[in-house]
């Protein structure tokens, strides 16, 4: 008999006041008893609608059944069959918009906590699992992957499992991409990301860091080096600014810079050399996950007041529900229906205030969301010493600029349904194709590209 409790089994978490002063993970994860209780809420639907909501098609009812049966190794293997990074997805996927959105239990009550269960299985494996790495029989074909983020890692993992000789080229000194530089420690511990990457390395994936492809080697040179196919997963690494006065002041950060200083360069730890200004009052512009991450990181650096300034209302916010909920719990102040028009500074060029205008919601725009309209004469100043722009990123143009014959549309690399670009043997996926999106969508793209590359090389 399934457990018919209407709500998800609660996830234990650090107290909001305590956690807003540290960078440790917010949620502790389920105990075995909690996981079992939650697993029993799954109806084991034969048609498994949840799976259709998952970009990498994790066999959700099957792995949940394994938890109930107490076969944790099999539960992990079931997830791992289609997902290269289970511990990551369990933590950062927007489940409420994917698998859990179409969970049958969610029609009347709360959906099954699929993400929480996935995390539990992945964490169990890291703690208790045996480290038997199954190495595939080498097939003698070489593939190069550009970028060691979610798309590249997934593509590499899938190809490696098929026996390909895979090399990932990463521009930064650490593999992981946005999982390392973008998503904060308190939401996705870097140790966990590192373990997932180490696992891929042990399975045979080679990772060359400090290699900025486009500058140090071109895609043409990679082919000359004997690679038969190239996958571009270089992400959306070009921060957008608003083009309002004052964006050049000291104290104005892109979210990428602010988060990179903290996450990748560990500026929050005193024994690391990268500097960061510890802010008192902060305005974060934007309403996505990155905005929540930046706001909550600022709070943890000791900021007394942190504002989220968003031009629409909460209903239109693109952030995961859980992130918004956590941010509120931690005392982040939501200035909704507000839009910045200028940033003001002192004589030395430091930020002193952000000038905002109030907004009203009008008719729905092309995205289907009601478009915000400025209320004339409603300008006012919010006193802050730091402004963080979290209004999105464009794809990094380096590869397009340095590769002949690679078609792009407004900077996004153009691909067909099989992730194939306009250049033979060159595939692309993730944010560099779609513009800034989610970890799991990038993983889905990496997965599709791996299948397409396999087919391409086999058909040669």
């Amino acid at each position, binding site marked *: 008999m399934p457990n018919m409790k209407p709500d998800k089994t609660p996830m234990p978490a650090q107290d909001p006041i305590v956690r807003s002063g540290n960078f440790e993970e917010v949620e502790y994860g389920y105990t075995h008893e909690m996981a079992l209780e939650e697993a029993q809420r799954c109806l084991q639907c034969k048609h498994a609608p949840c799976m259709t909501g998952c970009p990498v098609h994790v066999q959700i009812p099957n792995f949940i059944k394994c938890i109930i049966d107490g076969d944790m190794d099999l539960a992990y293997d079931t997830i791992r069959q289609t997902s290269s990074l289970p511990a990551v997805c369990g933590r950062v996927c927007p489940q409420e918009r994917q698998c859990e959105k179409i969970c049958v239990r969610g029609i009347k009550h709360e959906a099954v906590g699929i993400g929480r269960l996935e995390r539990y299985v992945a964490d169990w494996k890291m703690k208790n699992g045996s480290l038997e790495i199954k190495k595939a029989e080498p097939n003698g074909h070489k593939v190069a992957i550009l970028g060691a983020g979610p798309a590249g890692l997934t593509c590499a993992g899938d190809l490696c499992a098929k026996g390909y000789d895979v090399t990932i080229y990463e521009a930064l*000194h650490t593999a992981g991409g946005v999982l390392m530089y973008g998503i904060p420690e308190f939401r996705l511990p870097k140790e966990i990301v590192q373990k997932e990457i180490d696992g891929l390395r042990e399975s045979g994936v080679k990772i060359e860091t400090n290699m900025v492809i486009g500058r140090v080697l071109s895609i043409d040179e990679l082919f000359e080096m004997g690679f038969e196919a190239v996958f571009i997963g270089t992400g959306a*690494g*070009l921060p957008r600014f608003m083009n309002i006065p004052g964006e*050049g002041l000291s104290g104005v950060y892109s979210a990428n810079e602010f988060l990179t200083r903290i996450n990748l360069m560990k500026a929050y730890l005193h024994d690391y050399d990268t500097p960061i200004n510890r802010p008192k009052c902060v305005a974060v512009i934007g309403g996505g996950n990155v905005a929540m991450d930046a706001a909550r990181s600022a709070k943890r650096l000791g900021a007394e007041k942190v504002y989220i300034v968003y031009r629409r209302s909460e209903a239109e916010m693109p952030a995961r529900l859980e992130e918004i909920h956590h941010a509120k719990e931690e005392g982040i102040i939501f200035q909704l229906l507000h839009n910045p028009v200028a940033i003001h500074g002192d004589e030395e060029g430091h930020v002193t205030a952000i000038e905002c205008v109030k907004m009203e919601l009008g008719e729905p725009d092309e995205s289907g969301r009601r478009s915000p309209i400025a209320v004339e004469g409603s300008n006012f100043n919010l006193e802050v010493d730091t402004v963080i722009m979290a209004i999105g990123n464009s794809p990094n143009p380096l590869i397009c600029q340095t590769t002949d014959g690679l078609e792009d549309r407004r900077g996004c690399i153009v691909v067909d349904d099989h992730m194939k670009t306009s250049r033979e043997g060159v595939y692309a996926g993730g944010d560099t194709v779609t513009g800034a999106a989610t970890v799991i969508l990038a993983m889905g793209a990496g997965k599709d590209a791996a299948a397409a590359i396999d087919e391409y090389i086999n058909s040669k």
Partner: protein
Amino acid sequence: MFQIVEKRSLNPSMTLMVVKAPYIAKKAKAGQFIILRVNEKGERIPLTIADYDREAGTVTIIFQIVGKTTMMLNQLNKGDAILDFIGPLGKASELEGHKHAAVVGGGAGCAIAYPQAKALHAMGTTVDMIAGFRNTDLIILEEEMKAASEHLYLMTDDGSNGHKGFVTNALQANIDNGVSYDLVVAIGPLPMMRAVCDLTKKAGIKTIISMNSIMIDGTGMCGCCRLTVDGKTKFACVDGPDFDGHLVDFDEAIKRNATYRKQEREAAEEYKCRLFEGVDNA
């Protein structure tokens, strides 16, 4: 890891290092830069490529010992290795098609101005090299600069080499004497580059400067190195580091470069204390 194959002190505060980095050496061009990280807890700092040897697979960097990271770098010796060394980054300088150029270097900036002079000289451009230092003891690369130019004008702030004055005095004097430059390349501290640009704007001479902004990744990802050029936001790491000096908002750039001055000073002081403690304990 990137091995240091040669280390030379150019003056008490400037060091030259030749680093084994074959991939970078193969692609490097004048005007491009590298980013390095000395150790696991270190920051990433950009340094312009001073020279390269494609055959030997080496890249030369010249740095001024000013902060903690450059102090740590200077602790390394021949045979030691730098943890991370990334490049070549940024766009190469566009120097083609000029008849008579003045290459102006200020202090440590001469280390970067010199390869520009060398590149121009090799293209057949007539090069006047104007180099400024605080005093005669700090003069670096004198022979190299002489070899890469028709005339070398060495200026010192205190006149200790017999030529008292700023680089702008020498440049203005040449212009007043009827030298007609079609290009000025100015590299050095921001106030010096601004002074050169003020002068050349009046004289109507195209001027290229090289920005030394604060950076993290150097690939356009963080946006930290942004500056305003002709009213538009540009990133020094991918749009530069060379820019038309007449269009750069120097006021803003100077303020932005001071963002972490306090932390930088504290870190350097603390590191110096630790170094001396180490000496005492030894």
